[in-house]
């Protein structure tokens, strides 16, 4: 342990910061030099946060190695992040080392932790034990020079929805809707500080939607329970959100096969055939309008013509799956839909704040990319808030990297950063309990 007087000398912060938005599905990472002004979404690298193993080619893919994978059939994933929190440090450590420390690190990401600051984002309402584990690993295993951990959405206050503005002052009132892989969270942020008592979480995330589509396709067509990667790809390719509940009923009608003896033609503008990849000639599948002849050939009712291909018809699954975000009760989850959840979260706040938050809503997270999501959210929310309230709702230009960009903007401003960073020397002196308290106190600065 260094003598007391030398502490001040040893806390000169390094010049660059590793900004890491540690999501359950992907890591968003980038090295940010101090006082850099040309930050954009392009400075961010998106890396799968998983270790995948294929039983077919007996290969293990760690994080970014997944792009070399040529056969996603029956690919099994190990994800260190569960429900948004880093749970399995054995896997997460391997991934961090692989991506940032060892020679396998991606271009522009390799760093020596001892000469780097770490700015790490987390999900709100994280169990304290897990936060403590995280702090201990960062300082004791990786030995980062200095470190700050905070709820990711708070950094969004430092950047505007289109990712253009650069200011050292946070936006005053900002409501972040983060609809991510694990869940959807509603985070009211006042001057860069999270109003903890009003944070609400809806347990429907991209993972649940993928698993639901997997279940439905397995029940209705082929057994796909092992094909998580493929079903995620199909979900991203074909799903959409209907514009209203009434439109949902109409679309459901149009995709119905009809009764016995009263068969109906499926509406080919909604029903699509997804051509499944065979992992020999093709790695990725694609969707095309439904062709009833092909479907009869598939079931052996008509002789096979043309090259053999495997088709997965996708009908009402296209819109019934993302509908869960708006009606979780459709599969029996006793939670309100996303628009009502927003109203619930704001219900605890004073009227003036509510007004301000509703006028500045920014949606981040991958689910917001589903076509129709924003329109449905806006129209349903409009119905729930008084009509004299202004409703300003926008999707971040790149909803996946937006939180990272906010954090990077924050990290590029040395005077903001130096208030929140905790150096390794301070940690060594005070321990992890002190550190947890300090982060809780400086949560919003």
């Amino acid at each position, binding site marked *: 342990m260094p003598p007391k007087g030398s502490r001040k000398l040893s806390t000169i912060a390094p010049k660059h910061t590793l900004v890491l938005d540690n999501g359950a599905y992907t890591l968003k990472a980038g090295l940010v030099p101090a006082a850099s002004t040309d930050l954009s979404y392009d400075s961010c690298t998106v890396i799968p946060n998983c270790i995948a193993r294929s039983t077919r080619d007996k290969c293990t893919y760690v994080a970014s190695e997944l792009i070399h994978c040529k056969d996603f059939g029956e690919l099994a994933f190990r994800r260190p992040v569960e429900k948004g929190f880093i749970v399995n440090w054995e896997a997460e450590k391997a991934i961090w080392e692989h991506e940032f420390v060892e020679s396998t690190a991606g271009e522009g990401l390799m760093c020596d932790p001892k000469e780097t600051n770490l700015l790490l984002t987390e999900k709100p309402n994280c*169990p304290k034990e897990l936060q403590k584990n995280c702090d201990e690993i960062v300082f004791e295993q990786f030995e980062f020079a200095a470190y700050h951990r905070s709820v990711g959405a708070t950094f969004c206050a430092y950047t505007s929805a289109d990712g253009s503005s650069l200011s050292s002052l946070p936006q005053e009132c900002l409501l972040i809707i983060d609809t991510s892989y694990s869940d959807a969270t509603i985070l009211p942020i006042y001057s860069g500080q999270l109003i903890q008592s009003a944070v609400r979480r809806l347990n429907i995330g991209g993972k649940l939607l993928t698993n639901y589509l997997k279940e439905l396709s397995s029940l209705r067509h082929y057994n796909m329970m092992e094909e998580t990667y493929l079903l995620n790809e199909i979900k991203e390719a074909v799903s959409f959100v209907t514009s209203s509940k009434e439109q949902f009923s109409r679309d459901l009608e149009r995709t119905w096969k009809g009764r016995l003896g009263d068969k109906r033609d499926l509406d080919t503008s909604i029903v699509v055939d997804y051509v499944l990849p065979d992992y020999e000639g093709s790695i990725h599948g694609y969707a095309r309008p439904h062709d009833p002849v092909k479907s009869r050939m598939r079931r052996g009712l008509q002789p096979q013509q043309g090259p053999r291909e495997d088709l997965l018809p996708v009908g009402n699954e296209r819109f019934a799956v993302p509908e869960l975000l708006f009606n979780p009760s459709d599969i029996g989850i006793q939670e309100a839909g996303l628009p009502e959840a927003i109203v619930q979260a704001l219900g605890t706040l004073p009227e003036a704040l509510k007004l301000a938050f509703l006028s500045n809503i920014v949606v981040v997270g991958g689910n917001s990319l589903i076509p129709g999501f924003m329109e449905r959210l806006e129209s349903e929310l409009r119905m729930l808030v008084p009509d004299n309230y202004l409703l300003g709702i926008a999707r971040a230009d790149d909803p996946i990297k937006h939180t990272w960009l906010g954090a990077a903007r924050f990290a590029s401003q040395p005077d903001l950063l130096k208030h929140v960073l905790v150096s390794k020397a301070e940690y060594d002196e005070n321990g992890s309990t002190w550190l947890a308290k300090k982060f809780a106190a400086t949560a919003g600065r």
Partner: protein
Amino acid sequence: MPHVEVLPNSASAAAPGWTYVVDTGYDPSKVAINPKDRKRAAARPGARSDNELSARQQTAIARRIAELERDNDPKQSIAIAGKHATPKTQNARRIIQYQRQIKHWLDDEEAQLQQAPAPRTAQSSRRVGTMASIPPTPSEATPGPITPRPSATQADPSTQVDPLLSIDNLMPPPLDKAELDALLAAPPLSYAASHVGPPAPGGPPQRHFCDNCGYWGKIKCLRCGARVCGLECKEAHEATRCLKWA
């Protein structure tokens, strides 16, 4: 010939090994074991309404949701290949070797909150304390936070305007600094406490979908209560998913 009749008394009654008992109606402990009087139960007033679920259905739904929300399959264990830096400290070694899943940590958190309610109440009473020590401001003195301050502007004749043109009722009361500080200082909720609540009771009823094809579930399976859309799907349902034997 004398007529001999055996009068019933308590001592001589032959016990047939069974007895009539008063029918007290619904007995939940028996229904789950042998739900034979399903039709009678449905006809009985005050029985389960149409949209309520049986215990078996509820378990099935809960299990399904847990399955949909799962992050990692416990059956597949993927070893980490290659050699990696060894843990540098005792703490790090312990943390890296944890094999726990998120549900263990969340259960731990709940148990800790229940075990140690003392610091929590102390914290909340402190928050109440800071709230109470603030001198009441005009907006706090009004009955509710939503009520606009009506008298302040109307009392002043120079700013008095036609009440129809007044925008005062459209504006919420200004933000109270002390209230805001209390909001910002509030500690985070626990994971379980930050759930979204159930939908408002007056809202639209739950929608039911066909168990098989996803169309509206208009027909209820008599055996297990799941919904199907028509005969074709009912047959498929009985062949595969019916919970009768689950």
